């Protein structure tokens, strides 16, 4: 049956039914599992796949799993079709990161759906399991140096054989986890979710015929592909480049191997295709921060879907215009035996950030899609795990999720959203303070929005949530922290916007907090006495005593555009709200405050004019080229302060003030005024910058507007972030 043979009404009815089936699958999974990972963090996914493994419909939960499900289905077909065979009633379990899952904690179960003896489709379900063994409880193995220390990793294995569970395999899995009761339920949840889909799909095929159902699935994929290709075709051809830095590689804190690594993306858009090339990334490293190919694909999916495919059904069709290159052995395509258990939150995270940056800059080349472009969202979290003696003296582990409540990146039309949370979770939730205090030996002293955390810009990054804890009612309490984005701003600004906050953590040992509370005072961290040790990004395990206090600030999204262009009344509103402190308003936004602390409009205008004049004098690397004499005609935007213009038959990159930097075939940065900044505090809430790095600010020699603030290695070439292809008019 051909695609056109389905009438549009039947198509729509079956389309809606397929999505409803994935909803029912998800509901079944959540009902049986009951784990907080599944029910609250929604770290699971389900879907329906064509006989070749193509995703036709998927649940709207965690974005990262969308590419994994297709990959593990294909692994099952490849590894099991011959032996042990794929038959009605079979289900195959997979959690090997080199067979498609993002890390071993994500366990997938795939089932063929047969109708009248023929393979109709596949269905699958995957969820994050609380522990799959390995050297660390929870299986994020911070000290691992190879994958063999990271727990059970199953290649495709038949778990259900002709409708009967293989108890031997089931028991083998349970024997490898510290939490067999919970994992047992999760396994049952996966089986139940698949059974729900098998029943519903079989009924659908009985009603409409297998051919019709498969055709609708295929058409859905084509529909998404067409929608993305149409969108891409309307964008100019371009090559984009983004490089993100990953500081620290795992449980090797302080060792010489603990260097700053790179995830490097060159994205080429030609016609209606996208080519992601991560070949410039660092070689795989010893620590647990690598990701396998599946982790890289998950990062790309999480960037692509909400940016360019927000209105298309999320399925395989969105990956058809996409080609990905990355040699094996790199940090984002690590090969065995690299440790990868942290990769989803480390190298995989930065794959997503670089992809968001490149896709945003691509979208910003079109008036139609400019509104979908954003600065870089918050970099990875400072993981916080607490252990301590709880009731009955038994040692308990608590995962504190406050680090996820990060501010979103700025868009052209609006400030970043405060506490938006992880970019790859569509609907994030964190726990109440009371829920954490009931469970764990902690007392919060504060939990709120952190002023100045959002990257500065004409529109501002959203504020992140910080927290201050003290130990309360626990014994032998230890904390474990691990973060990138510690001495590196990951959440960079776009088009002259500044970076958002970096991960920050302050510990005060043996403070006077208890005395102050007893005296009727809720102290701030600054006023506490006590010892403040130097913290590291990968701090590892450390003791928290009864009088100790821990304060954390997560990363926050970057800003959009030159902060000097944030109107004075917006800065006033930020001051009134408390989004920006008076100090930062003067230092970063360059406003002048009157003695009452209000923004003085006139004085601000004049100060800012002076700053712009200074910037016009910043040296450019290259002398200005012979500029076009004729009138400039705007062709398309490059963000909302740079644009492509045509003059005298040639295309130029120009500032909207009218200053033409360079012909579009050439990078524009060498013609811009340049100032390198080593003191990160000048530009952001952060306090540390790795000594190998610097920030480079590029200004328009014509008007003094900032067009880029790049994070680069000292001595490195200018970032060539956006080059239009196809050149002459």
């Amino acid at each position, binding site marked *: 049956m051909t695609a056109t043979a389905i009438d549009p009404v039947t198509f729509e009815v079956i389309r809606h039914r397929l999505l409803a089936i994935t909803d029912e699958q998800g509901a079944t999974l959540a009902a*049986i599992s009951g784990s907080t990972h599944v029910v*609250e963090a929604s770290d699971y996914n389900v879907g329906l796949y064509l006989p070749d493994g193509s995703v036709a419909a998927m649940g709207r939960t965690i974005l990262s799993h969308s590419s994994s499900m297709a990959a593990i289905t294909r692994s099952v077909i490849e590894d099991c079709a011959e032996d042990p065979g794929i038959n009605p009633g079979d289900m195959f379990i997979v959690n090997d990161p080199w067979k498609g899952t993002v890390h071993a904690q994500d366990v997938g179960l795939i089932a063929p759906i047969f109708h009248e003896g023929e393979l109709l489709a596949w269905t699958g379900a995957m969820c994050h399991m609380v522990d799959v063994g390995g050297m660390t409880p929870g299986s994020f193995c911070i000290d691992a140096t190879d994958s063999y220390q990271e727990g059970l990793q199953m290649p495709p294995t038949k778990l259900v054989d002709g409708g009967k569970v293989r108890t031997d395999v089931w028991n083998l899995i349970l024997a490898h986890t510290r939490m067999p*009761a919970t994992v047992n339920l999760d396994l049952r949840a996966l089986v139940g979710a698949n059974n729900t889909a098998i029943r519903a799909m079989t009924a659908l095929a009985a009603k409409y015929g297998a051919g019709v159902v498969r055709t609708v699935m295929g058409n859905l994929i084509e529909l998404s592909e067409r*929608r993305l290709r149409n969108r891409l075709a309307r964008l100019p051809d371009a090559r984009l480049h983004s490089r993100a830095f990953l500081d620290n590689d795992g449980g090797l804190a302080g060792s010489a191997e603990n260097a700053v690594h790179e995830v490097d993306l060159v994205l080429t858009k030609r016609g209606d295709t996208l080519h992601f090339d991560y070949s410039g990334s660092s070689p795989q490293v010893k620590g647990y921060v690598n990701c396998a190919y599946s982790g890289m694909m998950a990062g790309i999916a999480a960037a692509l879907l*909400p940016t360019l495919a927000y209105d298309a059904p999320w399925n395989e069709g969105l990956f058809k215009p996409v080609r990905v290159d990355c040699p094996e052995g790199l940090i984002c395509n690590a090969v065995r035996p690299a440790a990868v258990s942290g990769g989803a939150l480390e190298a995989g995270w930065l794959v997503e950030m670089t992809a968001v940056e490149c896709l945003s800059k691509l979208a910003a080349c079109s008036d139609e899609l400019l509104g979908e472009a*954003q600065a870089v969202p918050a970099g990875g979290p400072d993981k916080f795990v607490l252990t301590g003696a709880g009731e009955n003296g038994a040692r308990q582990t608590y995962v504190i999720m406050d680090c996820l409540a990060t501010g979103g990146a700025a868009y052209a039309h609006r400030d970043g959203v405060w506490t938006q949370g992880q970019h790859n979770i*569509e609907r994030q939730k964190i726990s109440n303070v*009371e829920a954490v205090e*009931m469970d764990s030996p902690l007392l919060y002293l504060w939990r709120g929005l952190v002023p100045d955390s959002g990257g500065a810009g004409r529109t501002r990054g959203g504020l992140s949530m910080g927290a201050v804890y003290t130990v309360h009612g626990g014994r032998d309490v230890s904390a474990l922290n691990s973060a990138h984005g510690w001495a590196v701003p990951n959440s960079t600004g776009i088009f002259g916007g500044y970076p958002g906050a970096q991960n920050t953590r302050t510990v005060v040992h043996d403070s006077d907090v208890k005395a102050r509370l007893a005296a*009727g005072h809720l102290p701030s961290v600054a006023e506490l006495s006590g010892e403040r040790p130097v913290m590291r990004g990968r701090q590892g395990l450390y003791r928290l005593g009864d009088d100790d206090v821990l304060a954390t600030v997560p990363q926050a999204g970057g800003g959009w555009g030159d902060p000097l262009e944030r109107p004075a009344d917006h800065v006033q509103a930020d001051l009134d709200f408390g989004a920006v402190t008076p100090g930062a308003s003067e230092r970063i936004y360059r406003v002048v405050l009157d003695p009452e602390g209000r923004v003085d409009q006139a004085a601000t205008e004049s100060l800012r004019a002076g700053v712009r004049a200074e910037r016009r004098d910043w040296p450019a690397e290259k002398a200005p080229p012979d500029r076009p004499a004729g009138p400039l005609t705007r062709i398309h935007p490059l963000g909302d302060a740079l644009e492509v213009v045509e003059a005298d038959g040639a295309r130029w990159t120009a500032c909207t003030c009218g200053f033409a930097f360079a012909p579009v075939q050439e990078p524009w940065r060498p013609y811009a005024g340049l100032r390198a900044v080593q003191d990160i505090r000048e530009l952001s809430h952060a306090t540390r910058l790795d000594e190998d790095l610097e920030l480079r600010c590029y200004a328009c020699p014509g008007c003094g507007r900032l067009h880029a603030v790049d994070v680069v290695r000292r001595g490195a070439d200018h970032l060539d972030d956006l080059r239009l292809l196809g050149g002459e008019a």
Partner: protein
Amino acid sequence: MGSTTDAAERFFVGTDVGGTFTDLVVLQDGRPPRLFKAPTTPHDRSEGVVAALSLAAASYGMDLNAFCGSIVYFAHGTTAATNALIERKGTPTALLTTHGFTDTMLIQRSMTSWVGLGAATGHYSRRRNPAPIVARDRIAGVTERIDATGTEVVALDEQEVRGLLRRLRAEGVQALAVAFLWSFVNGAHETAVERIVAEEWPEAYLTLSHQVAPVIGEYERSATTVVNSYLGPVIRDYVANLEGRLRANGFDGDFSIMDSGGGVMRAEDAARRAASMLTSGPAGGVLASVSLARRLGHTEVITSDMGGTSFDVGLIIGGQPLVERVGEVGDLHLALPRIKVTAIGAGGGSVARVDEAGVLVVGPESAGSVPGPACYGRGGDRPTVTDADVVLGIIDPARFLGGRMPLERSLAEKAILVHVAGPLGLSVEEAAAGIRRVADNQMADLLRKVTVEQGHDPRDFTVYAYGGAGPTHAYAYTEAAGISTLVVPPTSTVHSAYGTVTSDRYRAVQTTDVQRTPPGAPDPAVHLDTARINATLGELTRRCRADLDDDPRVRLTRIAYLKFRRQSHELPLPVPDGEVTAGVLRELIEEFRDAYERVYGAGTALLAAGVELHTLRVEGRVRVTDVTEGAYPGSADPAESLLGSRQVHFPETGRVATAVYRGDGLGAGAELRGPAILEFPGTTVVIGPGQLLTVDRYSNLVIDCKGDS
């Protein structure tokens, strides 16, 4: 009932003010209910209520004053609270909370960026932080702290509170919300603030979190407290205005307001419990269905209400309405137990279009009531589900709303031609049938979803259909969901209003008092503190009775929420009367394990993980309206009500001659086989081809959707 009216004319009146219509139902002992509809008057909703009362008075041949004077009981549901919250038109309110936690309401547990976005949560550029109901500079941190055990860590700084009150009062604040951490365990600091407010600023409207929502979770508790203060004065004025108008027209009876938790409250209590009125309209429909289900002996029911813009689905399981402990309204999450209703944007006004990829899409966009469907002739030119119904012959344009609002078929045809048939290359009739099929299947998918989410199979349920468009589409969505029996009650067009007047007076009080049993304990029950449980239940019972004026007729239900440790699902379980002993708890835990496995599947109960006793609740109910409704008139012989026949398009048969009946002419015992159309003044009921209709002795239309074909 406090009435001196002549016993011969004792009216019980239920009203529900919706977005478009104000519905009214009149009950009388020994007589069938009468139903009325008047346009809603948003500028002053009491006008629409009086207009509906005037219609009723005329129907009984009485003047308005005499009619109102004969009303012994007036029950009222309204969207006033919901609208004030959604439109952010409440009272200027300040929140006093624990120092250090003033951003709780802004952060919303990180749900702030996606709450209220519905299916658009994947479109990140559209994320936004909702408009706050309390500005950040009116959220004040107070020096005080209590810990999880209820122990005071930092004393309350009373001087600071006095200073804050003076500042807020000077700034024009009129209502206060107080929500401190752990106040539901130890409310002393909140109570102290109440005392200070009484001294400093007695006229301020005040809500304390441990009183309005004494449950764990400071965000949801704070939100509920703030919303209650934000709406309280608005509702106080609303109730005073409506009551004044009723009294001015001679009403002298009792006056109740719908509470979305599961019944009605006295109107004078509504201003104190304004947050409980949110989304009470849909709750009224579910409650009306609960009493209908009891009468019909149905225990498992899906309620479906299809109006102009949305399709609302509720569940009755084991004869009880499904209640959610935390629900989302107006971009906030409120910790008030409410009857759970799930809605999608599918109604008579849902717009059909063909998207750029050539896919036929119906809803969630709605033409609303203005301009409304194209056939309304009010300037709308986009085709809706109602337009499709007109084109297919299901709705008779001349007899819409009993002929009071004739529709224009040609406008419906044109809209469908331009926006759907043309782009898809279909005939107008095929396109109209397509619009219906898409809408009906979407609704069927929702019926399946809400039941599967609760661990049930939709095929074990009966569907009740009401709302203006529900009875028109129910035969199709019921059949498509694989469900056999559909019931359309005679009050279907005013079902929420009927729910207000037939519901019990209701009060629920609850508190969270977490108790956990250790993992692996062979007899978990012995690890729970029975003395504490008995004391808490005793106190809740006392408060619940007091709130119901210690009425001797009150029926109490005691409920405990249990969950397995490290698991998210909790279940409410009835606690038997009498003292709670270890034996009682043992049985409760057994029941919990069984219920858990019934809902989530055999083998899912993780007893070895330990059990957590979470929230205790006491619900009290007092019967209010004690009316034995009389039978509706009508004949068992359908032929007597036959109006004629017209061509109607059904997907299964195409265009076919279909008998049309005057719906209220059909009486108990009538039977007929579809295809058939039953026209009522406020709705059109469709019996699909081959389906069998039986009118039961209460004049419910009972439709076997599978038929025998």
